[in-house]
């Protein structure tokens, strides 16, 4: 298995773990009471912002650790540039990831149309963001293994 395939798997697993751990920690802290209160908007806003920051920081740390472990275990140096295959796979992964997020966004807006509480809209948006991230990693892994 090559560096890029291993990296896609690590990225996939870390995305799932980060999202699961953060959600399990933050979701029980949601405010009770009025469904559309100012407090609730504050909670969901901070949920998304902190999740984004935590996710970026965790991915950077995991990527550094992965590179160190990769060098130690294989004796190879990780590629320092993206060639034409990497760029093409990145584009395909981004396209799939974007499509998933757009579907999630439309579902979130649809939830408001059918008079669901705004909490549902935020949950659908957050889950679609997570699923789009997973889709991106899966697409990368698929194309590195099966070709483009």
């Amino acid at each position, binding site marked *: 298995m*090559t*560096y*890029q*395939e291993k990296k896609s798997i690590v990225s996939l697993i870390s995305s799932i773990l980060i999202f699961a751990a953060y959600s399990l920690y933050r979701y029980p802290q949601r405010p009770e009471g009025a469904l559309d209160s100012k407090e609730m908007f504050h909670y969901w806003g901070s949920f998304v912002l902190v999740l984004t920051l935590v996710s970026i920081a965790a991915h950077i740390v995991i990527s550094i650790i992965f590179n160190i472990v990769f060098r130690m275990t294989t004796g*190879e140096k990780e*590629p320092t*540039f993206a*060639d*034409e*295959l*990497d760029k093409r796979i990145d584009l395909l992964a981004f396209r799939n990831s974007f499509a998933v997020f757009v579907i999630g966004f439309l579902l979130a807006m649809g939830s408001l149309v059918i008079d669901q509480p705004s909490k549902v809209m935020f949950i659908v948006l957050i889950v679609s963001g997570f699923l789009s991230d997973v889709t991106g990693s899966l697409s990368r892994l698929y194309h*590195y293994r*099966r*070709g*483009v």
Partner: protein
Amino acid sequence: MGKVLVGNHIRKLRFNHNEMTQQQLADKVGVTRQTIVALEKGNYSPSLELAFRIAHAFSLTLEEVFFYGENSKER
């Protein structure tokens, strides 16, 4: 996914050139080893520029390295 119709003799040529490794060829043509692996497996059709660079690395013409046809696996 459409079948890759551009095949190549890269694996055979590497062995004929002092058993050149995939990494050595990758360094020579400016791509990652993953790309050479994908090319040899027939999972990727290179850009024209990369195809020329690979042919030049073996001091051969494009037609001597790559072929086009229904069966893209190495003949």
